[in-house]
């Protein structure tokens, strides 16, 4: 019983955190409205490019340009992605090896710097994305917010960026 209560509490806490922040975005609109990132088509979740395409109503050329933009950014992010993963693993290793607190702190600081580098790449990519859009598309408040949220962790997967957003963070 205690376990169930604690599990429910954890689910509730996590759910509340997600709901509170995610409701910062406006309600989604079915047709060209944009809104919350993530989505489904006939029960199948959408990938990032599909979400951007639907939210901003990208035309064929824009979709191609956006794909190329993120393909390039994904490739360019490889060193940062590797450094980020290594820095995080180093923290775990330091803890598991009973290293001193000073060594753990150093690993944590190193990780913070790599996380910042990754976040900067993501936001630069967002800026480049916006330059591909025309004025009405940029004025789609819901879609812009959606894109902002979609950027988090976009380059974490070494294989591809255009996938269904998952729970993986950094």
């Amino acid at each position, binding site marked *: 019983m205690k*376990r169930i209560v604690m599990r429910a509490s954890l689910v509730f806490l996590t759910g509340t955190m997600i*709901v509170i922040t995610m409701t910062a975005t406006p309600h989604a609109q079915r047709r060209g409205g944009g809104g919350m990132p993530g989505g*489904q088509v006939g029960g199948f979740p959408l990938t990032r490019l599909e979400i951007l395409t639907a939210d901003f109503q990208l035309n064929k050329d824009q979709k191609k340009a956006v794909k190329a933009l993120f393909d390039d950014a994904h490739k360019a992010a490889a060193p940062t992605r590797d450094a980020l993963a290594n820095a*995080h693993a180093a923290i775990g290793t330091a803890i598991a090896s009973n290293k001193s607190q000073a060594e753990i702190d150093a690993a944590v600081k190193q990780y*913070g710097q790599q996380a910042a580098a990754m976040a900067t790449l993501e936001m630069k990519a967002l800026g480049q994305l916006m330059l591909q859009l025309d004025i009405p598309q940029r004025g789609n408040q819901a879609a812009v917010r959606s894109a*902002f949220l979609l950027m988090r962790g976009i380059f974490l997967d070494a294989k591809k960026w255009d996938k269904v957003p998952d729970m*993986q963070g950094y």
Partner: protein
Amino acid sequence: MSRPSATALFATLVLVPIILSAQNAPIQSGMGNDDTGAPKVSLDEPLPGEKMIDRLKLDDKTQAPEVRLLLMDASRDATPVAQKILDVRLRLGNLALQNKVDEMPAATDAYAAAATEMAAIEARAFTKIYAMLKPNQQPNAPQAFAMMAGIFQLPAGRGRSGQRGGGQ
């Protein structure tokens, strides 16, 4: 199409309202209404904390409840830091859009400070978890810690339920 126009739009439409509206927008579960835009917390997919518990093969009756409590405590500590990270991300986004490259290093430093703070919370929590592991559980610790990355922050966008084509 001009850059100032895009910048103004981004600043007004995203940077300011995104946080403020979190306090004003109605909180909706999204259940039973495909059009709310509210996130749906999937019960099918285990939460990262639960994945970690599974990975470590923790005892359901003794270790797992304690780890859940640890994570809840850490989550409370992490909430203001997660907000700080979100704020700096917004600032970075705005600077990127305005192409203010010279101002980005300061924002990146601010992000690094906040991310370090968050990583320290994760590390503290994991140190406590690691201390309660039995020897046969410890080899799984590195994979389990990898699952903690960003555990106290929002995942990338999820949750909108929409349809395309004839289903509308």
